[in-house]
């Protein structure tokens, strides 16, 4: 069904199509429309799932963990403070290897309190062991939701996934989306039948034990390796989806857009649409969109960036105390090892809902194209 609808509504439909069995949710702007839509579907009998209207996000993620550990497909969604409140459970869920999928509608973090978009919330969970996929459009959010369960539940992965979409800019925007058919989704995404983790008196197991140093370190190492290995599955599932549904997003890991130019902008999420508009107007700049941010695509980025003259890393987060975005040093690490000679700069923009305009993009390209190691903050003047 191809139609114009609100991003949150579209994502809710995608979730419905994935047939989650337990959904634990707590409202927070701007992700709220997702639980609201799902609650209405349940109230109307259109979705046969248990909805747990928890008393906090801490419990939202905890109940999701409980449900997933019982062997059912489980879902939650949140933003910003909600994700920050879940923090401790987020780490635990990955360590317990539960294939939960969570939609994060990205929003800035307090203090001060601000309800608009940036990506500080998910970026602050980047070490947690969750996969993170950032979407450019609502269509991509829909498609990625469906892919996410397949990735998470893959026996080679068994890790939780954040599907990230920019708050308001995507979640509250009406735009065309093609909502897949249930039949097609069913073919693509089989029911979740876990072999490793399920609470059942018929086959008792102990989950979440205490671990001494050696097994703990061994589990962390394995977890670290497995998160990295998941990249292949992200790609594979993306490709399979593309084949079946006819839609793809770069190579599933990164998307290179006119990346045969001397300058490359690296960015994530909805701002890439605006950047593409600028790329089309120029001949010196291309875009490398990071879709799969965790695991971090070192090889892909090395290949896409190492021969550039200039790389501008655009980020919607600030690593306080580092005076840059979080991805900036990660990219430089990649380029360092690749022996790149590129000049690499950083733009921190779109913080707390600051609008990022084509002019902004044009202008920072001009300002930075001959620089190295500069970090800039955009402040909200559309012509800055």
């Amino acid at each position: 069904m191809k139609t114009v609808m609100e991003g949150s509504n579209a994502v809710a439909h995608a979730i419905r199509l994935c047939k989650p069995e337990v959904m634990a949710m707590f409202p927070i702007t701007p992700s709220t429309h997702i639980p609201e839509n799902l609650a209405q579907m349940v109230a109307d009998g259109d979705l046969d799932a248990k909805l747990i209207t928890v008393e906090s996000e801490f419990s939202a993620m905890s109940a999701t963990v409980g449900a997933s550990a019982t062997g059912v497909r489980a879902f939650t969604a949140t933003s910003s403070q909600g994700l920050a409140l879940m923090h401790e459970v987020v780490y635990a869920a990955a360590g317990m290897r539960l294939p939960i999928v969570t939609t994060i509608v990205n929003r800035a973090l307090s203090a001060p309190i601000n309800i608009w978009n940036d990506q500080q919330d998910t970026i602050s969970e980047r070490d947690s062991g969750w996969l993170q996929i950032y979407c450019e459009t609502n269509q991509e959010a829909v498609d990625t939701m469906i892919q996410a369960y397949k990735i998470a539940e893959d026996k080679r992965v068994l890790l939780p996934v954040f599907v990230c979409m920019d708050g308001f800019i995507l979640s509250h925007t009406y735009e065309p989306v093609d909502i897949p058919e249930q039949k097609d989704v069913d073919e693509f995404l089989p029911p979740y039948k876990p072999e490793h983790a399920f609470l059942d008196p018929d086959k008792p197991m102990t989950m979440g034990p205490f671990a001494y140093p050696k097994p703990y370190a061994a589990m962390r190492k394995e977890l670290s390796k497995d998160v990295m290995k998941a990249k292949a599955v992200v790609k594979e599932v993306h490709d399979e989806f593309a084949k079946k549904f006819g839609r793809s997003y770069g190579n599933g890991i990164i998307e290179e857009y006119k990346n045969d130019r001397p300058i490359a902008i690296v960015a994530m999420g909805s701002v890439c649409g605006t950047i593409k508009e600028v790329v089309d107007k120029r001949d010196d700049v291309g875009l490398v969109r990071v879709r799969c941010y965790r695991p971090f695509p070192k090889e892909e980025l090395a290949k896409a960036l190492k021969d550039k003259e200039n790389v501008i890393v655009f980020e919607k987060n600030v690593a306080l105390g580092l005076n840059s975005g979080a991805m900036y040093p990660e990219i430089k690490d990649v380029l360092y090892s690749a022996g790149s000679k590129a000049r690499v700069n950083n733009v921190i923009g779109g913080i707390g809902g600051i609008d990022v305009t084509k002019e902004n993009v044009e202008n920072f390209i001009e300002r930075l194209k001959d620089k190295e190691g500069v970090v800039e903050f955009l402040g909200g003047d559309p012509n800055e």
Partner: protein
Amino acid sequence: MSEITKLNDPEKELIAPGHRSCAGCGAIIAIREMLRATGKNVVICEATGCMEVTTTPYPETSWKVPWIHVLFENAASVASGVREALDKKGRKDVTVIALGGDGGTVDIGFRAMSGAMERGHNILYICYDNEAYMNTGVQRSGATPFGASTTTSPAGKVSFGKSEWKKNVPMIAVAHGLKYVATASIAYPEDFQNKIKKALTFKGGKYIHVHAPCPVGWGFESSKTIKVAKAAVETGMWALYEVENGNFKLTMKPNRKPVKEYLTGQKRFKQLKDEQISEIQEHIDRTWKELEKLESSDVNLLSIL
């Protein structure tokens, strides 16, 4: 082994030996008693604490029933998810128990527990109460009794120990509108087990709070665990009751001994002066008077609360 009748068969226990709890641990007795009542068809969702840490040092586990631990503060929310997932799978027959120490229930896990109760999931919450954070070395919890010295409410030159009264979580649970709430003691296993069985006949949230002395944290000989638990009940320091559909009933009406008999012999109370001991005695006397009044009145707690 040839056919000998085992009057008691350790093989049937649902929690295996080899666990790392202290000799004489009251909490593990509580869990053992609990599992004898629930049987195998159960999932346990436990909070961090002595019982979790000492029963599951990877790659070993003492549990023979499905068991999950996630964090210190979320046993009830994890149980909410487990319950709904089991229901969705058509496994309504399986009992779901959220299990926490007093710290994990009365303090840090309290929002989760309260939330789960409010939503009315079909789970039984059991709090084993050893009256302090034992796992981390005997720190004060909301359930630590007035006067007890703990490492964060220590007796000292200008302090006699904890200066607040024990938080009354069973009655708070009643005020949540639960159809079944009870208190219990490890020294009265039949009573405890009957209460568990009765609780499981109710749909929705249920709460049982079981008193489980800790020889290490309270400072008494490991052999005295049951004696101390009994003394708590006999002196009225711990009241055994149930609130079924709002009707309050004392399930044990001891001929109350002086509380001093309970307090002496526990290191945590050794600093108490007569003054504080009388204060505690008065508190108990007052409480029991009201409890008895309540029992004989026809006030239905479920409707007022």
